[in-house]
C-alpha cells in the first residue's frame, strides 16, 4: 500500500507499507528528496516499523528525536511530512 505527498518546495515523499495480518512488517520511504547519510534511511524505515511510530501520540516528535539522536538529516521533507503519511495508518 502506498501513500504520498508533495512537500512544500516541490519534492515528493512516498511511503509504502507491507502488512501481514494486522501488522505492518515493512516500510519503504521513497521520493526525490535528499537524506544524509544516505544509508540512514533504511535504519529510519526499520525504526518506524519496530517502534510502530504511527501509533504514537506525537509521531512528528518521535521522528525528529530519532533523526537528531542518530545525526540524520532530511533535506526536501521534514518530520511533520513523514508524520502526516504515518497518521492513521492501518493494514
Amino acid at each position: 500500500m502506498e501513500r504520498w505527498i508533495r512537500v512544500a518546495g516541490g519534492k515528493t515523499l512516498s511511503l509504502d507499507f507491507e502488512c501481514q495480518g494486522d501488522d505492518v512488517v515493512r516500510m519503504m520511504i521513497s521520493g526525490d528528496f535528499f537524506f544524509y547519510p544516505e544509508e540512514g534511511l533504511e535504519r529510519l524505515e526499520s525504526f518506524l516499523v519496530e517502534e510502530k511510530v504511527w501509533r504514537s501520540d506525537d509521531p512528528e516528535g518521535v521522528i525528529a528525536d530519532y533523526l537528531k539522536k542518530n545525526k540524520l538529516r532530511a533535506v526536501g521533507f521534514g518530520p511533520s511530512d513523514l508524520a502526516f503519511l504515518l497518521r492513521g495508518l492501518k493494514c
Partner: protein
Amino acid sequence: MLRKRWRVLRYEKASAAYNMALDEAIAEAMAFRVAGPTMRFYGWEPAAVSIGRFQKLNEVVDMESCKRLGVDVVRRSTGGGAVFHDQEMTYSVICPEDMMPADINDAYREIGGWIVNALKFLGIDGTFEPINDVLVDGKKISGSAQSRRKGIFVQHGTLIYELDRIKMFSVLKVPKDKLDSHFLGDPAERVTSIREQKKVPWEYVAAAMANSFIMNREWYAGDITADELTRAEIIAKMRYGNAEWTFER
C-alpha cells in the same frame, strides 16, 4: 599543497555506471588521503537516465523507451530526482568536507553560484533556486545532488546544453503529483538549455564552466590515477552496473 590545490580532470564521455563509479573511486582515494580535491567535467556515452538514490525506478523511468532508444539507466548514490543525461555538461566536485560550507543548503548555494557565474560568462542570466536547481527565465537548466561520507564532500550536477524534449519525456515519467504541482503548464516547458538561450558553441560552455569553477582557486590539470581507474571499474561492475542496485527500490 595537495590538500587545497584542485585537480581538474580533462573532459571525457563514459558510460553511466563508470561515471558514477569514478566519483566514488575518487572520494575513496580522498578518504585514504591519496587524492586531493578534484573537479570533473564529463559526458554520457550512451545517453542515460540517472535516478535518485531513494526513487522507485518504475515510477520515474520508462524502461521500454530506454531500451528502444538505447538509453542507459543508473541509480545514483545521491538523492534527488531522475535526470536525462544527453547533450549536457556534467560536473563533479569532490573534496574534503571542510572545504565546503558545513550546511548542506549553503553548499548547494555555493556551487549553484559557480554555475550561475558560468552562465553569466555566456551572457545568460541564471538564478539559484533552492534546494538544488539553477533556473533561467523560471525554467530549470541545471540540477545537482550532494553527498557527504567519511568526511568527503561529493556534488555532481548537470548543465543542459541542447534539449531533445521528445526523447527526454519518452524516457522520464513525470510523477502525477508533479503534473499538478505549483509549476504551471507542460512539464517539457519547465526545462531549458544553453542553446535555447544563446547559440553558443559547445567549447564556450566547456570553457565557461571550467573558468567559473577554478576562479580564485589553485588548480592543475591532472589525470585519473591507475588506482582510481581500477577501483572505478570494480565499483561500476559491482554496484552501478548491477541490476540489484538499479532496481533496489
